[in-house]
């Protein structure tokens, strides 16, 4: 599976838009990009998944350029409760059932 690279940490302030970019240069045709969020002392929680272009849900947007070698998770107007670790994963269809997590990005939202 394609290895993912994302910033180790980011700081933001309440009300700002946060964009976390993940690179996955070796992504394959049947790979999807998935993001999970993890709060302290909790298990990861699914945020969003996409294949190409843009996906939006009530929590976030995911932007994937045409070459799919990177993706950007966008969190609009963050609040203190968005402080968490965000993981970018590449998930391959029909190729096993494990999710492979990297180190994630630690987002700290300040007042």
């Amino acid at each position: 599976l394609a290895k993912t690279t994302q910033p180790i940490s980011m700081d933001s302030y309440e009300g700002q838009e946060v964009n976390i970019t993940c690179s996955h240069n070796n992504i394959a045709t049947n790979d999807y990009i998935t993001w999970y969020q993890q709060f302290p002392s909790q298990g990861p929680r699914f945020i969003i998944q996409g294949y190409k272009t843009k996906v939006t849900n009530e929590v976030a947007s995911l932007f994937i350029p045409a070459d799919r070698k990177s993706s950007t998770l966008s969190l609009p107007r963050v609040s203190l409760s968005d402080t968490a670790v965000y993981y970018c994963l590449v998930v391959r269809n029909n190729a096993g059932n494990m999710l492979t997590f990297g180190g994630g990005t630690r987002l700290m939202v300040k007042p």
Partner: protein
Amino acid sequence: GAGVSQSPRYKVAKRGQDVALRCDPISGHVSLFWYQQALGQGPEFLTYFQNEAQLDKSGLPSDRFFAERPEGSVSTLKIQRTQQEDSAVYLCASSFAREVMNTEAFFGQGTRLTVV
């Protein structure tokens, strides 16, 4: 239940002791996963069940680790002769579909194991 339930939440074991960690997945979920998460790291895959069948155990770090899901619902992760390097949070996740692609995985809160 409303979500994936794991017990105990915290476990302190003396080195050499055997431990058993329990996972109650969401009712009806076919797939069940175990992950190990060291402090400050992302979760690492241990093993995967589809119903009662253990289809992938490639992530189990040693033969001291054993997992079972005999009736296709509750699962137990057993660690024999615990070592200090086994100290971590053990996460259980379940999903409705057979393929992780087709649906999200729901994680429990984890069991924090400390080996002293």
